[in-house]
């Protein structure tokens, strides 16, 4: 209460009396970040958060011109790209930042997984993070359709058809997602609502919980570092860590601007439900490993449709990922857990190899 700033001005004291600036200041000063050889990985969560804010900002700007109907969506995006001043920039940054955000999110996920930051008491932080991953993939899937171009149309047809392979509830869920039996203008309107209202609302809730828990528990020092007696050195979050964060954010913003300028988001042909699917149709890269897996599954495996088996497999995989903190009992007890390190590395390797194959194995024969 008697910090030097306190004497400075009436405004500060006025605010302090009403919202408790001093308490916030104490909190901010108290926050420390451990310094060790894995400190680098701490930056990726904040980077993902920064990119999410870029998405919110550019997304709001796009809303001012976008029209969510099958008749007008493609034309409104074309107008935005061709006529609106810097429309190309806003849309291209939205498109690129989405991709980079998912990349940093995966880096964040795997660093937390491999450094075992999910162990007690951070189980809920992990679970909220995995749910946020699902929400972000939902953002990617729904946003992809909005320009209503050929690739988006068939990508969505395939993606939503895969949902139909879920046993028992599949047909119902597919109808629910598509807003009808087929991918139509009704689907576009529905995806728009999901993309700009439902997912942002859910993400805000989950993200608040996630950040609150990160704040509450502080950064996790990896067990491997702890066992060597490291991790006792720290740096203050403000300003040391935050300034380093800022360097990263400004750099990634510069990269986004460069990508947007040299490789602007494409629009392609307007979706036509009565045209054949174009050759070489590919999903966004972050769905590629799943897409490629489904490609390798034969039509039927032991009398079950390969598709169904694949979808159930991914569902079970996602559930296991969500429950890792509760499955990895050795890490919870503070013992080394080579099994889960192996699982994490195998998962990473699987995703990398299948993604690579997805982009190198030709589909046109």
């Amino acid at each position, binding site marked *: 209460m008697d910090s030097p700033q306190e004497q400075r001005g009436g405004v500060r004291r006025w605010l302090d009396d009403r919202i408790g600036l001093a308490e916030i200041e104490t909190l901010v000063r108290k926050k420390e970040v451990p310094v060790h050889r894995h400190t680098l990985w701490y930056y990726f969560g904040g980077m993902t958060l920064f990119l999410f804010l870029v998405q919110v900002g550019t997304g709001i700007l796009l809303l001012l011109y976008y029209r969510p109907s099958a008749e007008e969506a493609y034309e409104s995006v074309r107008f935005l790209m061709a006529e609106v001043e810097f429309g190309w920039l806003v849309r291209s940054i939205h498109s690129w930042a989405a991709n980079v955000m998912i990349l940093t999110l995966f880096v964040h996920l795997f660093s937390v997984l491999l450094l075992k930051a999910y162990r007690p008491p951070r189980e809920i932080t992990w679970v909220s993070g995995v749910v946020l991953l699902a929400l972000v993939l939902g953002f990617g899937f729904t946003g992809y359709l909005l320009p209503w171009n050929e690739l988006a149309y068939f990508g969505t047809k395939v993606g939503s058809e895969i949902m139909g392979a879920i046993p028992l509830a599949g047909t119902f869920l597919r109808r629910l997602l598509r807003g009808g039996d087929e991918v139509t203008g009704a689907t576009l309107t529905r995806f728009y609502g999901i993309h700009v209202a439902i997912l942002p609302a859910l993400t805000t809730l989950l993200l608040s919980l996630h950040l609150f828990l990160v704040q509450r528990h502080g950064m996790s020092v990896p067990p491997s570092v702890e066992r060597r007696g490291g991790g006792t050195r720290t740096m203050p979050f403000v300003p040391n860590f935050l300034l380093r964060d800022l360097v990263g954010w400004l750099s990634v913003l510069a990269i986004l601007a460069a990508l947007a300028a040299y490789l602007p988001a494409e629009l392609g042909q307007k979706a036509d439900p009565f045209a054949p*699917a174009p050759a070489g149709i590919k999903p966004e890269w972050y769905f590629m490993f799943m897409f490629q897996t489904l490609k390798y599954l034969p039509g039927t495996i032991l009398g079950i449709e390969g598709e169904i088996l694949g979808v159930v497999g991914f569902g079970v995989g996602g559930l296991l990922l969500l429950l890792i903190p509760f499955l990895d009992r050795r890490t919870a007890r503070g013992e080394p857990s080579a099994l889960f390190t192996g699982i994490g590395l195998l998962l990473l390797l699987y995703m990398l190899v299948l993604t690579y194959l997805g982009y190198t194995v030709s589909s046109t024969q």
Partner: protein
Amino acid sequence: MTRAAGGDRPTRRGFVNWFLGTAAGAFLIAVVYPIARYLVPPRVGESAAASVILDIAPADLPPNAGRIVKFGNRPVILVRTPAGELRAFSAVCTHLNCTVQYRPDLGHIWCACHNGHFDLNGKNIAGPPPRPLDPLVVNVAGNHVVLSKGA
């Protein structure tokens, strides 16, 4: 719920808790049920037409070629085989719903999305499709191709 812990006699607190719980549950159902029903899209009438007269003359389609035509609100692929015969199938791939196309270089039907192949009888011959394409009946009436649902 209406019994106090440890006692058999209903208590005032127990009753109020039961009452509040039931009311909260009913309220929740009254809110969630209409929303859930709202989210499920209503059934819209599909084209029930059993046959469609296309604005295509048989001569428009050369041998070893195919094209996508509308059958109600669904795409259908009309193929003229290298032997000259007209055939039609649902153009919706049985794998994941992409729209198939005719590949003159292969002489059969192909789906670009996941490399599915169908022969000229619509049978799935390679790739992931689990079932054949649904066939349609092709007739020629005057100078028009007429498609009808299979028997």
